[in-house]
């Protein structure tokens, strides 16, 4: 009996991991390392992966609020990051709906399309409506590294999901 309740507590904690990781990455700006030659967006990887595989563990409300927090910390117009994160969720939800047999390579390239669209949208909105100048080369580097690192983080999250939470929705 005690063993069951202990397992339930640890399972409850493991299920919170995606939300905790998202907020840690946003609050500490872990992903956006202040380097000109290497930076990637960890939050985008996390959101796409968990919305695709277990969307019940990362609520859209949490993602929306994480975007608001990110805008506040970085100094972007309120709502822009939330919008981009949620469009990314839309891509993941669409892929989940149309996929019958999941394939990592297919997910990976769909992720590239998703981040390309969301980053372009963000760039267009910021540049055209808010006169915020962004360096295209940095955005390109950020998108490329985010795409390349997806496969690594995906493997880590897969391992975590299989061994600590379980693949099936509740």
């Amino acid at each position, binding site marked *: 009996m005690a063993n069951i309740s202990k397992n339930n507590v640890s399972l409850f904690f493991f299920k919170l991991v995606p939300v905790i990781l998202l907020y840690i990455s946003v609050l*500490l700006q872990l992903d956006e390392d202040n380097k000109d030659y290497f930076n990637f967006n960890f939050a985008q990887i996390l959101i796409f992966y968990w919305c695709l595989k277990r969307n019940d563990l990362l609520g859209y409300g949490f993602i929306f609020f994480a975007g608001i927090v990110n805008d506040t910390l970085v100094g972007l117009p309120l709502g822009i990051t939330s919008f981009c994160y949620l469009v990314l969720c839309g891509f993941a939800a669409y892929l989940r709906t149309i996929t019958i047999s999941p394939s990592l390579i297919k997910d990976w390239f769909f992720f590239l399309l998703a981040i390309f669209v969301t980053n372009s949208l963000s760039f267009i909105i910021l540049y055209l409506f808010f006169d915020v100048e962004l360096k295209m080369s940095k955005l390109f580097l950020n998108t490329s590294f985010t795409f390349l690192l997806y496969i690594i983080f995906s493997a880590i999250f897969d391992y975590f999901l299989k061994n600590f939470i379980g693949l099936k929705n509740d």
Partner: protein
Amino acid sequence: MEPSRDDFIIAIRSAFLKKGNKQRFSLFALITISLIFLIFSKYNFKFINYIKIGINETVYRASFVVYAPFNFLDDKYFEIKNHFNLYKNYEILNKDLQNLRKKKYESEFLISENKRLKKVIEDIYYSSDEIIAKVLVDKQSPFLKSVVINKGSKNNIIKGMAVLSEYHLIGKVEEVNYTTSRVLLLSDLNSKIPVLIEPEGVRAILSGGEDNLGEIKYQKEKLLISNESIVYSSGLGGILKAGIPIGKIKINNRKINVKFFKDFNQISFVKVLRFSEEKN
């Protein structure tokens, strides 16, 4: 078989409109709220500004608390590093001290002479109100470079005030909340400051550039500028006082960059200054 247009629409509808498993909101609803936030921010609606100030105050404080252990570790790392470089630093400082002692007497004479001459030609004097502030959040994104300080409208901070670290200009106040403010650093692409390059006396605009450097733009006498020249604020535009040191010129492949005197990643306290003009 090719998926039909209907299948595509059904999949899109399912992805955006349906609430997912254990989801409280649909994607469509939240995307709409984000867009409403964006539109209201664009047109500066009053209520969205109040919401923004409330969120800013909470998030800045929360981020400061979350980041406290990392700040502690950072401080300790630099403390240990400084201990290892103690003797080397001592020698450098000793040389600098000797040079500065020589220059001090010269500059004291020049200051008094300058004041006397300004009185003769009835020029404008600047007086400044100084506010010391602590940096709460300094995690800069690769796209936007700014820091958050713990003084706001409550402490008479207003938009556009100059921000200095020690004696060097590092940016200006861009956004003011009740107890916090955001400072746009000179290394940000969106920062544009009128500067004076000495000893050539060339006026130009300093913008943020790559690799935490500044970039000199819109200067007329491009060929006059040489390496190691000093960049000062020019005082044009009436926001900043003339003569605040900013950095040194570094010319790379015909691109005129500015290496800032201060490392923007190492700032703990800043001085926020408001300059007002006083006629003699």
